[in-house]
C-alpha cells in the first residue's frame, strides 16, 4: 500500500495535493481498499463553498458509504466528472486519475495542520 510523501493527509482518510492556492482532494489507498469496489461517487457541484470538515463527496461501495471530508475551506473549482461513469478509477488509481474534487483555498494556512505520510500511516 502506498502513501506518497508529496501529499498531505487527514485522519478521515483523505489526501490533499497543494498546487498554489488549489487543493486537490481524493481518498487514500487504505480507504479505497477498506471500502472495496467503488460503485458510485457523489460529487459536489462546481461553485459549492465548503468549510473545512464539511462533507464534500460520498464514495459508495456495495456495502458501505464513505464521506469525503473537505480538508480545507474554499470554493469547489473542479470535480472529476470521469468518476460519474467510471467510479472504479478511485480503486485503481486513488492518488492519480481517481482524484475527486479541487478547492480554491480561502485560508491556505489550514493546510499546515494536515498530516504528512508518516503521520497518517501512524493513525492506521
Amino acid at each position, binding site marked *: 500500500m502506498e502513501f506518497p510523501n508529496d501529499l498531505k493527509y487527514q485522519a478521515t482518510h483523505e489526501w490533499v495535493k497543494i498546487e498554489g492556492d488549489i487543493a486537490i482532494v481524493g481518498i487514500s489507498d487504505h480507504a479505497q481498499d477498506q471500502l472495496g469496489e467503488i460503485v458510485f461517487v457523489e460529487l459536489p457541484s462546481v461553485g459549492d463553498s465548503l468549510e473545512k470538515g464539511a462533507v464534500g463527496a460520498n464514495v459508495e*461501495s*456495495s*456495502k458501505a*458509504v464513505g*464521506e469525503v471530508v473537505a480538508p480545507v475551506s474554499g470554493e469547489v473549482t473542479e470535480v472529476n466528472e470521469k468518476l460519474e461513469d467510471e467510479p472504479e478509477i478511485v480503486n485503481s488509481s486513488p492518488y492519480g486519475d481517481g482524484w475527486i474534487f479541487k478547492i480554491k483555498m480561502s485560508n491556505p494556512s489550514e493546510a499546515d495542520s494536515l498530516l504528512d505520510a508518516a503521520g497518517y500511516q501512524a493513525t492506521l
Partner: protein
Amino acid sequence: MDFVPHDEETIKNMLEKIGVENIDSLYVDIPNNLKIKDLNIPEGLTEADLLKKLTELSEKNKIYTSAFLGAGSYYHYIPSLVDFVISQSQFFTAYTPYQAEVSQGMLQSIYEYQSAISRITEMDVTNASMYDCASALAEAATMAFFITKKRKVLLIEGIHPEYVETVQTYCWGRNIETKIISLDDLENNLNDEIAGVLIQSPNFFGEIENISHVAKIIRSKTKKCILIQAMSDPTCLGKLTPPGKNDVDIFVSEGMGNKPSFGGPNLGILSVKEKYMRKMPGRLIGLTKEINGDKEGYILTLQAREQHIRREKALSNICSNQALSMVAALIYLVSLGKTGLKEVAIQNFQKAHHVKKALSQISSYSIINNKPTYNEFVVKCPNVDKLIKKCKENDILPPLRLSNYFPNRKDEILVCVTELNSDESIKKFLQIAKEAI
C-alpha cells in the same frame, strides 16, 4: 423459509457472550418510573371463544352493496387471481425479506413489480414500494431537498388534505418550509430557492391537471427544481398520459389490487427519473448474474444508503416495503394486462361522466369542476344532509361531504364512480338525488 425464535439456551449463550446476567439488565438505562410493570391484557381465549368474539365485532360492520365514495381510496374489481396468489404461504407475509437473498422468489416478485410500475408510468426506476401515497409524497418532498439542497417546497392546491398534513409533518422534521399555492400563482413563486413543486393529478377534486404545462413552467423558471406528481388512483394510467411522458421527476401513488378496507393496508408507489435513483429512499431489487456462470439471481441493490448501514445519515427511515400489498398490485396488473387496465380506465371515465352529466341536468344541482375529470367530481347540492341520509337508507355508501375537509364548502360533495357501480346502483343514486331537494 422458517422464522424460528430464540430458545432458552441461545438466549443464555448470547447473554453470557456479552457478559450480561439477564435480559432485564439490558434495560438498566431506562428509569424505573418509565418501565411498565403490569400490562392490562386479559387472559387468553380459546379458539372457539375468540372466533365468536371476532365474528360479533365484524357483524358491527355495515357493508354497503354499492359505493359513491372515493376521496383517496377506491373500489375496483380485483380479479380472484390476486387473492389466490397472495394467499400462497411463500408470499403471505406483510414483511420485506430481511435476509433478502435467500428469498429469491420474493425478490423476483418485487423486481417484477418494479418493472410493471415503471412500464405503466414510463418512469425509469421504481422502488420496492413505500407505505402509502401520503408518506411516499412526503419522502418525495425530502428527496427534492436532498437533490437540490434547498429548503422550500411548493404544494399546489388540490393535493389530498391528508397528504398535505403528512408532507408538512415530514418537512417540519427536516426543517423544510412548505407553502400551499394555487396553480395560477406557480410562476410567481418559482425561483432557484425552491426544491420542489408537489402537484396531484387527478387532484383531490377529481381534476386532471395539465402536468406537461406545469413542467414547462418549472423548467423555464428554475435550474433544478423537482416536479413531483401524486396520484390517488393509478387505474387512470390506463388512459391518461403517464408521468414519464410529462417530464415528471418523481411520481408517487398507491392502491391497485388492494381493497379499500378503511383506507388500508395499501402500498406507496414511488418512481423516479434515473438521475435521481441514488437519492431514492427504500429498497430496490436488481437482477444480476453469477461471476463464474450464467445463473441469474435477484439481489437487494443500492442498499448502502439505508439506515442499517448509514444510521442517522440515511436518506430516509424506511428500510422495508409493503410486501403483501405490493404482490397484490403486481398480480392485479398482470391479471388485467395492458388492454384490461385500459378498459378499467375507460369504464371509470365513462360511468363517472354519465353520472356527472345526469346530476348536472337535475335542477338545483351543479358541477363545480371546470377542468376535465376522471372518476371523481364535485357537485353542489340543494340538500347534502338529506342526500347522505337517503343514500345510507338505500344501502349506498354516500359520497364524501367536502365540509369534512373544507368546513366552508357545506353544500358540496365529492362523488366517485368506478367500474363497480352497476347501472342499477347509478339509477338508484340519481333517483335519490332528485328526491333530496
